[in-house]
């Protein structure tokens, strides 16, 4: 058989109920479905029908590496989980990416991925070594914190194994529980840690001594130099005196120590912050954390961070890689750019007054999330601001949380998280169901929609910006780069695009696909972004590039590069030797997106009405300029989007010919049989 470069050739079907393993050739799916998320979508479509709930044994966690994983192509170390997400509201099929060294090791052990199905009869972990998959008792690991579990597995199997584990949050089915690598990389957004918990699966530990053979080594070395340009700088440990994001820096008494580390195998960057000697929530000794963007807000959030068009809209002369921004190494701005002034026009963020800066408390929040194994977004961006805003508006008056609500206090935060993770109190148990469900149980009108009066615009001085105390957007996730609430004074052309991404998804899209477009397009759409096809076109490009990113695989911090548009095609070719063009890669992305769409339609009845109603409410609240979006404007944009996609505008469903165009005849047939093609209604 000809060498299948890039892939190692098989996917393991792991049945936890009866401890059996079977093998599926990867070539059943690739190259048509590239790898990563595309393969997961195909497997899920084939294997999991409607009616399955997230915690049912019939839910499957599908995990896939990409063809670039462990080839030395930068960012290929990122990998993907999919399954029914307990954290999405309502529960739907979702996905979650993860970095670390685990994915590469899975390939060295001889697998391109695995399908986890069933439920183990008792706490179990999987030990994979060179093609052998063993089901071992996790009785002595159950209950352990994330790092203790990692440490214990290294004690048992040697310190060269790579593990993914869940913490107590996953064991106790907290809906936003993460799966965590040894270097604090998480698959968190979808809450798949809780699905592991529901399957009695504590960890997967792997050791592999095999090889991955890429097709074109010369090309790989070239990509190593060219991607993420400029090359990273020497990386000494720095003593910092402040902490925060642009425009939101807080002084830190005595300073702190920062290093930069890579998040995954073979990456050529070091965007993750290594914070040394931080205060721990669990012990006297200081601990080291690895942190990325959202953790920053745990430390202090009186004012929003500044936003400038350059973070979303770019010119050839001035475009920044986010990885370079987080490691503090962006290229210097080029002032000869005719758009230079507008691009770097610093916009002050809002005053939000959620909490006072407090470095130690921030460290404790991050440590709690890391060790319990839970999604930081839901805690830092949603739970804590909700408590802060709700308390200031008096909605919790007369409610007994068991301790006075005080988001400024370390003790309160520890108490609160402990009662949620271990479901100790009535409110702890309720909040373990996730913010969207808890707020509905409490009464959304009072506990979700009450207006917080403490937010002020700094763009329009003195303008009060009404904001609900629950920062919820679509599908049970919190706002993120949406011009309101958290992260940045982003203006309307940016946030309508972001919300369109979000509408079409089942999870927070901006944690894996920040919206990018050219500055020329920005100028064209900026006066009326909802009525310009370029907005819809840019969102489609972004969505397709997200499919590609999660499939071949690469990282949102280096991809897409608007001015090097065949980078991912080159990555794929270098890994597999299979000829690839931008157009062909885009076709594969469309195919993957259509499969995702088909799953949502078949399993969850997704259609236009459901989508528009899920996303619209957040846009009725003002952005920092006081701008909102009308129902008509939004529906006009949705029309444009469906039109550009070739989907039916009334239902939001792709028609038969679109499925067929991308080689998905059987998918179209199945949808037709259940009356879910346009015209069937």
């Amino acid at each position, binding site marked *: 058989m000809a060498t299948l470069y890039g892939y190692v050739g098989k996917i393991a079907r792991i049945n936890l109920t009866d401890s059996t393993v079977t093998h599926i050739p990867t070539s059943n799916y690739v190259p048509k479905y590239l790898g990563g998320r595309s393969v997961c979508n195909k497997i899920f479509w084939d294997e999991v029908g409607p009616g399955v709930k997230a915690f049912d044994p019939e839910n499957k966690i599908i995990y896939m590496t990409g063809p670039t994983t462990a080839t030395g192509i930068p960012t290929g170390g990122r990998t993907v989980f999919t399954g029914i997400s307990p954290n999405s509201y309502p529960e739907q099929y979702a996905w979650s990416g993860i970095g670390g060294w685990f994915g590469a090791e899975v390939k060295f052990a001889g697998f391109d991925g695995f399908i986890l199905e069933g439920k183990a009869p008792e706490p179990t972990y999987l030990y994979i070594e060179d093609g052998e998959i063993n089901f071992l008792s996790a009785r002595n690991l159950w209950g352990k914190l994330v790092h203790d579990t*990692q*440490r214990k597995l290294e004690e048992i199997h040697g310190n060269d194994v790579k593990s993914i584990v869940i913490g107590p949050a996953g064991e106790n089915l907290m809906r936003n529980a993460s799966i965590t690598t040894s270097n604090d990389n998480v698959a968190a957004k979808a809450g798949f840690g809780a699905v592991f918990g529901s399957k009695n699966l504590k960890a997967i530990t792997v050791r592999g001594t095999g090889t991955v053979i890429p097709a074109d*080594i010369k090309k790989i070395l070239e990509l*190593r130099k060219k991607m993420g340009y400029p*090359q990273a700088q020497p990386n*000494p440990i720095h003593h910092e005196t402040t902490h925060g994001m642009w425009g939101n820096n807080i002084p830190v008494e005595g300073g702190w120590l920062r290093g930069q580390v*890579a998040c995954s195998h073979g990456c050529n960057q070091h965007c993750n912050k290594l914070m040394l000697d931080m205060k721990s929530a669990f012990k006297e000794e200081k601990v080291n954390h690895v942190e990325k963007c959202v953790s920053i807000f745990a430390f202090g959030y009186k004012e929003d961070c500044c936003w400038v068009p350059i973070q979303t809209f770019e010119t050839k002369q001035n475009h920044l890689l986010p990885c370079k921004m987080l490691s503090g190494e962006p290229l210097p701005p080029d002032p000869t750019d005719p758009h230079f002034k507008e691009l770097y026009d610093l916009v002050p963020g809002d005053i939000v007054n959620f909490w006072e800066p407090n470095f130690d408390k921030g460290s404790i929040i991050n440590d709690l999330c890391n060790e319990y194994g839970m999604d930081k977004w839901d805690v830092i961006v949603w739970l804590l601001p909700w408590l802060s805003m709700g308390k200031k508006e008096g909605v919790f008056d007369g409610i007994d949380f068991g301790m006075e609500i005080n988001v400024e206090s370390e003790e309160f935060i520890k108490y609160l998280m402990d009662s949620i993770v271990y479901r100790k109190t009535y409110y702890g148990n309720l909040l373990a169901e996730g913010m969207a469900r808890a707020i509905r149980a409490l009464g959304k009108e009072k506990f979700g929609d009450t207006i917080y009066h403490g937010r002020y615009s700094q763009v329009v001085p003195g303008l009060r910006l009404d904001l609900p105390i629950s920062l919820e957007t679509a599908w049970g996730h919190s706002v993120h780069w949406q011009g309101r609430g958290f992260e940045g004074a982003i203006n309307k052309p940016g946030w309508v695009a972001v919300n369109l991404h979000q509408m079409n998804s089942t999870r927070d899209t901006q944690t894996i696909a920040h919206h990018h477009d050219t500055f020329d397009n920005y100028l064209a759409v900026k006066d009326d972004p909802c009525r310009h096809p370029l907005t819809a076109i840019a969102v489609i490009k972004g969505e397709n590039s997200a499919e590609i990113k999660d499939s071949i695989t690469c990282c949102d911090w280096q991809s897409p590069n608007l001015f090097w548009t065949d980078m991912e095609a080159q990555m794929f070719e270098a890994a597999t030797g299979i000829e690839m063009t931008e157009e062909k890669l885009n076709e594969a992305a469309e195919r993957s997106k259509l499969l995702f769409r088909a799953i949502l339609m078949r399993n969850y009845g997704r259609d236009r009405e459901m989508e528009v109603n899920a996303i619209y409410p957040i846009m009725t609240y003002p952005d920092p300029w006081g701008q909102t979006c009308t129902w008509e404007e939004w529906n006009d944009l949705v029309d444009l989007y469906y039109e550009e996609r070739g989907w039916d505008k009334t239902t939001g469903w792709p028609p038969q010919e679109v499925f067929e165009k991308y080689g998905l005849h059987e998918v179209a047939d199945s949808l037709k049989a259940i009356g879910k093609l346009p015209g069937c209604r």
Partner: protein
Amino acid sequence: MKDNETLIQTGRHVTQFPADVSLCAGCSSCEIVCSLLHDGVVGPSYNRIFVERGTISMIHRIYACQHCVDHPCYHACARKDQAMCLDENGIVYINEEYCIGCKRCIKACVFDPPRINYVKSSDKSKRKAKKCDLCRTRPEGPACVEFCQVRCLGISDLPDERR
């Protein structure tokens, strides 16, 4: 650390700079390019430089052959001068064609962990020892040093070129 490690006089070798010069990002690029360029594959048995990951501390250490002046691995080799060889610059390297995979060099390495890697294979003829040859035939010099993104690797006897 083995007892006699401190007595060893080392030769020109790949070295990791201290964290105040440049902290290892833990990316494995050094391991990857090493095996890619020598063997055309990526795999933990094939690299000749090792990243020992501080999984909890996140502080990583790099291990590579020190090219000891008295090179006990070379002396221990069952196929000395065919498999384990010495070049005119004192570089201890393995001519894998002749390596019979007996592991004697690995046992003789004075360092812990030993600085020689080993390919396990069900096909015994493919079992080979692998060790750093300082990329002796590569005009650009050691690949690991060139491709370390944060430049925390260098050559031991050129301390001034660290930065």
